[in-house]
């Protein structure tokens, strides 16, 4: 007895992606939308749903519901802008799935756009703000805990010290991603990376170096979500969504006596339960890696590796090209483009639809996709497959 998918992605598109200013958030979003519609073979007039995500760090309202007017769309049956930090893009696809499954809309575009890189080429300032984890106003500012990077670095240090993970494991993760990026013509960092190059990368917040951090980019990505029935008419193979889950468990990663697990564990369990699969069934994963540590940690949080095992797993090459669990096959956020969750979602769809070109992976029956944000607080996950029915 098989389980029928709940929705399908039938188109993927990007705007130009650049480390220089190339247009407004709205312009880039519209370009990605056009590319995704063309890829899907769907006319703009056929869209009856539009969902939007902008970076949480960007000025509010840059990509709000009036994008409908900017994009020249008609009488929409579904329109919303979603804000759930790093889980937003995956949540957007979940909402689109629920909408087509419930009959609220038939053809929904999901769009992410961001312009963090300023004319001078710097993006670090885009991510600077005190990060609150104590709940006491101004507390973290007194100690200079700026940016999400500080909180992730704290989580990383504890994880590394607990399990004997060192910089060679972080490097191995970054190197695996860079090897994948070599096969992705859109990836912005494709040069060879080895341990020496990694070690030459300056520290930002120890234990993280520049090469442990996501690669900010100006650009947009979009996917077109429709019903399973409508996907049968699509001009190209569809990527099917079988499972969806969320997990929002506060600062569980910083619970003194916890085991370090986050809401990601719940999100993964829920998505896998809906799809009727287990971690052992997952053949590929596309993970929201704001930092190298995030990728390692997600492997364990989602049950794909045991506690403390992800470092050796990655160092042994299992997540790289030719590995048994291909991960972030376009280069991920570190080496391709930091489209904040649209990177893993779009890469899953590209792989499932056989559009990966030089990086196409043969074995992709069950793909885990996640988005996570805040201070390891907000998580959403998908189980995707090239198969309409999962047995």
């Amino acid at each position, binding site marked *: 007895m098989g389980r029928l998918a709940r929705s399908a992605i039938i188109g993927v598109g990007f705007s130009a992606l650049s480390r220089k200013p190339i247009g407004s958030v709205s312009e880039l979003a519209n370009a990605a939308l056009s590319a995704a519609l063309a890829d899907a073979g769907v006319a703009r007039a056929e869209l009856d749903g539009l969902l939007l995500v902008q970076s949480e760090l960007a000025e509010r309202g840059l990509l709000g519901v009036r994008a409908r007017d900017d994009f020249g769309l008609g009488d929409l049956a579904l329109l919303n802008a979603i804000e759930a930090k790093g889980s937003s893009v995956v949540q957007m696809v979940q909402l689109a799935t629920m909408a087509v499954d419930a009959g609220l809309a038939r053809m929904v575009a999901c769009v992410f756009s961001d312009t963090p890189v300023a004319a001078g080429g710097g993006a670090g300032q885009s991510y600077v703000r005190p990060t609150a984890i104590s709940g006491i106003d101004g*507390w973290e500012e007194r*100690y200079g805990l700026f940016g999400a990077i500080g909180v992730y670095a704290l989580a990383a240090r504890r994880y590394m010290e607990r399990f004997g993970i060192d910089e060679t494991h972080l490097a191995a993760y970054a190197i695996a991603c860079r090897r994948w990026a070599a096969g992705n013509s859109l990836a912005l960092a494709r040069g060879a990376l080895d341990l020496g190059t990694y070690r030459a990368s300056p520290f930002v917040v120890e234990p993280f170096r520049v090469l442990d951090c996501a690669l900010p980019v100006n650009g947009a990505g979009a996917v077109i979500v429709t019903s399973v029935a409508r996907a049968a008419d699509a001009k190209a193979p569809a990527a099917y969504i079988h499972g969806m889950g969320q997990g929002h468990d*506060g600062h569980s990663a910083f619970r003194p006596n916890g085991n370090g697990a986050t809401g990601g564990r719940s999100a993964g369990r829920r998505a896998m339960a809906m799809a009727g699969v287990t971690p052992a069934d997952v053949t590929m994963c596309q993970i929201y890696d704001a930092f190298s540590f995030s990728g390692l940690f997600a492997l364990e949080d989602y049950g794909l590796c045991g506690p403390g095992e992800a470092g050796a797993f990655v160092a042994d090459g299992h997540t790289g090209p030719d590995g048994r669990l291909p991960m972030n096959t376009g280069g991920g956020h570190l080496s391709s483009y930091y489209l904040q969750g649209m990177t893993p979602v779009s890469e899953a769809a590209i792989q499932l639809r056989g559009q990966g070109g030089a990086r196409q992976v043969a074995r992709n029956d069950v793909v885990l996709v996640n988005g996570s944000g805040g201070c390891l607080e907000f998580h959403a996950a998908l189980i995707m497959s090239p198969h309409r029915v999962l047995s």
Partner: protein
Amino acid sequence: MSGAVHQAQPLPDAFLAFLRERELRVFRARPTGEFVDFAALGGVASAADGEWIRASGRARLYSWVVYRRQYHADFPPPYTVAAVVLEEGPLLISTIPGDPQDFALDMPLTAAFDETGRLIFKPTPLPGTR
């Protein structure tokens, strides 16, 4: 005495008010008798739901990082940011003086105040050493 005064304030404000008097206090909820995480103080309806207890000042090092990039004019790098767990249970962001090379996970710490009155944590000397 001052405890009674601060009881009337919102809990996060009371915590800061105690610190200004160089007292580290933690909130113990009634009727569970559990110490409330600082992040959860905002969810406590009223100070009458518990009491502010003077913390022992003993803590352990949960994690630490070293900022190597300048994010703010008041924080020239390098500087250490630490997460510490008080003996009573709640976790706090703070800092630790000294060379991070000498730090170890879960090492014992003691609460102190720096010259500006800011709460910091110092490595606890081993017995018999200074």
